[in-house]
């Protein structure tokens, strides 16, 4: 089971089985957006802030 600690609030987060590298997850405790950067070992970092030209 892949678990990581939130970089913002240190809450323990268990990654779902079908998690992909590059996926954005939300910390259930503090609500910050986190990007999954690796699965073995599991690693996360703060997701980039939304930019003006993002989205559709």
């Amino acid at each position: 089971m892949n678990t990581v600690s939130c970089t913002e609030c240190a809450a323990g987060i268990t990654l779902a089985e079908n998690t992909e590298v590059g996926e954005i997850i939300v910390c259930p405790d503090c609500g910050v957006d986190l990007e999954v950067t690796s699965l073995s070992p599991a690693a996360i970092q703060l997701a980039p802030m939304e930019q003006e030209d993002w989205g559709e």
Partner: protein
Amino acid sequence: MQRRLKIGVLYSRVRVEEKWIFAALEKRGIDYDRLDDRAVHFDLENPAPWRSYDAILERSISYTSGLYALRILNAFGVTTVNTAAVADACGDKLTTSTLLAKAGLPQPRNVVAFTPESALAALEELGYPAVVKPVVGSWGRLLAKINDRDAAEAIFEHKATLGSTQHQVFYVQEFINKPGRDIRAIVIGGRVLTAMYRKSEHWITNTARGGEGELCPVTPEIESICLRSAQAMGGGVLAIDLVEHPERGYLINEVNHTMEFHTMQPLSGIDVAGEIVEYAMSVAKEKA
């Protein structure tokens, strides 16, 4: 023996749409690479690595990165979904409006000016309320509904003072008193796959802003306007946003070229990701 086709998917974030696209590629046993647009680079004198792909599906979250990547790839002779020309037509709302007007397609009235003073004069001619939109942007960001001259003066001054040069393009649109909803339809390769209403109490009905989805029947009228809009943009994989005017009927509000469909796919039961992959493969086969 026929050569196995190779697809590249250029992406930034693995949103649910990208997960579905990757799954659709894997389910079909298609040879593909995940190309993170934050990690790749282009050597303009060396197109060979990129030419190894029979098609590249562009799913960048940043319009700017996606557009420049497509321009380079198309200049390399690499087939892309969508093309740079389509991204250019759809990603800039003013360009979209210009092409729709050229094609004689119904849309809200738009006026454009390059200074706060001329924008104010144009808006007064258009009439209140009106909507000021950035020419590039999504998810309903930085849209301003202007109800009177005081608000217009304030918004234009703020844009002129605080905005980037792109915000000095004052793109003002007639406000449409729509029935608490707009319509988003997905068009892929000249077919309207499905459509949904996006309902909201707020005048911005984007689902990224809390608008709720509800299936919308694709009537012959909706089908016709969507296909004509897609054709005016250059075709490919598109999402057409329509608003319903109480007298003038359906008006085209915008066209999206790397659309999100996390609401549409489960709502419609249509495998949009699979359809995108099938389309990318058909385009790749044409080239191969």
